[in-house]
């Protein structure tokens, strides 16, 4: 079964016992994408350190 991005969002909200209003979803996804970019920046620097 192919997982959709919304599935992850719903499952995580359920884990947190958070009722995620529909109106929030777009903003939350946009912010998660921003956090993912920052996580990649951190990874790039940390991995570059490992190679040095």
């Amino acid at each position, binding site marked *: 079964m192919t997982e959709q991005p919304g599935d992850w*969002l719903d499952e*995580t*909200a359920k884990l*947190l*016992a*958070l*009722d*995620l*209003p529909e*109106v*929030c979803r777009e*903003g*939350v996804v*946009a*912010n*998660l994408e*921003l*956090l993912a970019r*920052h*996580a990649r*920046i*951190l*990874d*790039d*620097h*940390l991995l570059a350190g490992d190679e040095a």
Partner: protein
Amino acid sequence: MIDRYNALTRTLTPKVHEGPLAGMTFVAKDLFDIQGLPTTAGAKMRLDSAPAAHDAEVIARLKKAGAALIGTANMDEYAYGFATVNAHFGTTRNPHDLARLAGGSSGGSAAAVAAGLADFSLGSDTNGSIRVPASLCGVYGLRPAMDDLPMDGVFPFVHALDTVGPFARSIRDLKRVYEVMAGRTVKSESAGRIAVLDGFFTRNAGAEAREAVATVGAHLNAEILNLPQAEAARSAAFLITAAQGGALHLDTLKNRAMDYDPAVRDRLIAGAMLPSAIYQRALDFGAVWRDIVAEALARFDVLICAATPVSAPRIDEGTIVFNGETVSARANLGILAQPLSLAGIPVIAAPLKTDKLPIGLQFATAPGREGLLFELLAKLEADGIVGFTAPVEVLA
């Protein structure tokens, strides 16, 4: 106009004749407990919260020193912003140009001092919330070292990064207020080696910010220093903020999500969902970064960079341009402040002396060496390199 307003304020406020701050007035960002008032932290939902039983510790110290608290100041909701654009209480305008942002999240405090409404003010700084509005409003702002000033009675945001500090129009006033808040006299020290930060701090500065740094750097005969991990430090601060802010607000989000400023709410929810492995990597990197900065401060007494990438953006434009990119103003005004937040060191944002729109610089040193910054900035102020310039039209 400012002199007449100050004279009126002094007439109306109780006269206290004792203490090092006697006769001075101040306002406080509305996340400090003030006895008898609800602490809103910029959130409409907190207007009906129980009034504070006591003043926050720093407020108590300032009052004991003779300063008169005359009001509370607007802020981004729950301090999660660099703009002081508050969905419930409105946008704080920049006294130098009312069509422009004051910066945030302590924008109300910075604007009050810039406009001459109070002698000094209090803000909080997690990722740059004192330094950003200080830069955009053209006043001095101090982010102290982590755990330097008491946080009792201050509404929290990110416990790994939260600090409180003052704004003022002169370096002398900033020092006087800081000493009262800290409960100690600052040891006087002269700076030897000074470095201007390059790399990330230059790439992410617009032309006017780079010019401001070049002006100060040339005057001080500063060396150049690159800290290559600064970009990672910024990202780590971003991730730590998201995770800790989200965790703090999780219970309230479960019950009152729709009572939040939507821009703040969605950021907090995303932060609460951040996987713990990413959060932990950010924390671990924070420790590495602090060692890198400590090493730099063993070689240099003071590090300098711009406080904001640009001067105050227009309120009706959501974006700013630097590093060849057009990016969100609200998300990026603190880009140069965040790495120094994660370092946990004391930083003063000082305004370049200019007749154009204000822009500030960050002066950072090792914890316990704040005297270096005050002495250096007093010299730069006397030389006419940094300093407050009153807005042309205020309360017109």
